[in-house]
């Protein structure tokens, strides 16, 4: 199992947000978490990626534990372990969060050259192939502000995918897209899943998740149930 979440609990200032949320994602599977605003969807994603610490529960990504509950005690992954776990994770944010001061190509290659210490030429070759696959050929020298919302999102996908994650998480991927671009996004995500990547989508866009997902789960009052 690529992602296994068990009995995840999280509260903010005493207000419970997640209440024993449990679900899993297999490699090559597209799973969507559907729910209203404030249901706890984004918190689940932030706990999986280690951006928030879960209060209780177990999160296992590709055999490594972000947190693990045993005998009523939840142990959190250390900095080093989190770094290793994040090598298997990719995340596409709702607002993309591209680096505005560098062109598209550098946005995509930066993690390869800085974190993975890959030679620049090789990183650029990989990034250009990824951009081409996502329909962004010819955009590599453009700055993020010169791109449309859909293009920015595809750059964010390229940036997350170029490091070859096993699990790719999307936070509200269609929130700022028009219907045509949303349709394109369905194809992009399906293609990534066909390549063996596990995909976890957080959304409240029912028509989109029904089209793109293998399984749709509902998040209600901090718990995950079958859709």
């Amino acid at each position, binding site marked *: 199992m690529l992602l296994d979440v068990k009995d995840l609990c999280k509260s903010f200032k005493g207000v419970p947000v997640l209440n024993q949320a449990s679900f899993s994602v297999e490699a090559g599977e597209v799973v969507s978490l559907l729910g209203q605003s404030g249901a706890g969807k984004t918190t689940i994603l932030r706990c999986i990626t280690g*951006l928030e610490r879960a209060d209780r529960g177990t999160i296992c990504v590709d055999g490594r534990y972000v947190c693990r509950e045993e005998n009523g005690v939840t142990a959190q992954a250390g900095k080093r372990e989190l770094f290793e776990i*994040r*090598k298997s994770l990719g995340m596409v944010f709702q607002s993309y969060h591209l*680096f505005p*001061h560098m062109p598209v190509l550098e946005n995509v290659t930066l*993690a390869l050259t800085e*974190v993975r210490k890959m030679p620049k030429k090789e990183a650029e070759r990989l990034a250009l192939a990824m951009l081409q696959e996502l329909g962004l050929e010819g955009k590599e020298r453009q700055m993020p*502000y*010169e791109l449309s919302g859909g293009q920015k999102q595809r750059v964010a996908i390229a*940036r997350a995918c170029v490091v070859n994650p096993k699990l790719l998480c999307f936070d509200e991927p269609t929130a700022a897209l028009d219907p045509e671009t949303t349709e394109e996004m369905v194809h992009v995500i399906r293609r990534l899943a066909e390549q063996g990547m596990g995909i976890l989508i957080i959304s409240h866009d029912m028509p989109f998740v029904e089209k793109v997902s293998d399984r749709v789960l509902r998040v209600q009052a901090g718990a995950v149930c079958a859709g």
Partner: protein
Amino acid sequence: MAYVLQIFPQILDGLGITFGTFAVTLILALPLGALISLGRVCKNRALRSVFGVYTWVLRGTPLLLQMFFVFFGLPAIGVQLFGRMRLPYVYLAFVLNYAAYFAEIFRSGIQSVEKGQREAARLLGFSGWQMNVKIIWPQVIKKTLPSLGNEVITLVKDTSLVYALGLSEIFKIARSISTRDVTIAPYLVVGVIYLAITAVITQLLKMAEKKVYYEE
């Protein structure tokens, strides 16, 4: 005109101290300010408070007072840093003062970089150092350059304060000549020199702003 040409070389004698104070302050206060700004935004509350008090005191009291404190106050409490030399005390006071102003400018720049970019970088595996060097500081420099430019120009003019410790920079020399010859012409000459220096710096800042500019 002949009179101006006659006093001009005398006034230029003080340019070394003016430029020296300006350059030393800029070279040392910028990195010190950057370090303090990191302390102002770090997770450690105690460290944040210490640097908060530092910037409050240094920005809340006049530079002249700080110069006197460093030059007269420190030796009075037994801290002999530079013996009888005056210039290093001036440098110290200027660097400590300007570092506080630069720190606040940098802090606002750091905090204006959206949190999501840091999170994206963390998920991509960037260390704190890599994130600062490659993602945060290039944006901080772009965002803060206009405010830094203001401070740099103020610094040029503030160098005239060193006369208070008896050092002969251009303003002090002009004042001496003015008293000796009973004329305000030396002040006009010194005003033109300050204008010329700030004009050059303004142009350099404009070029720098153009170089780091990008649309957001």
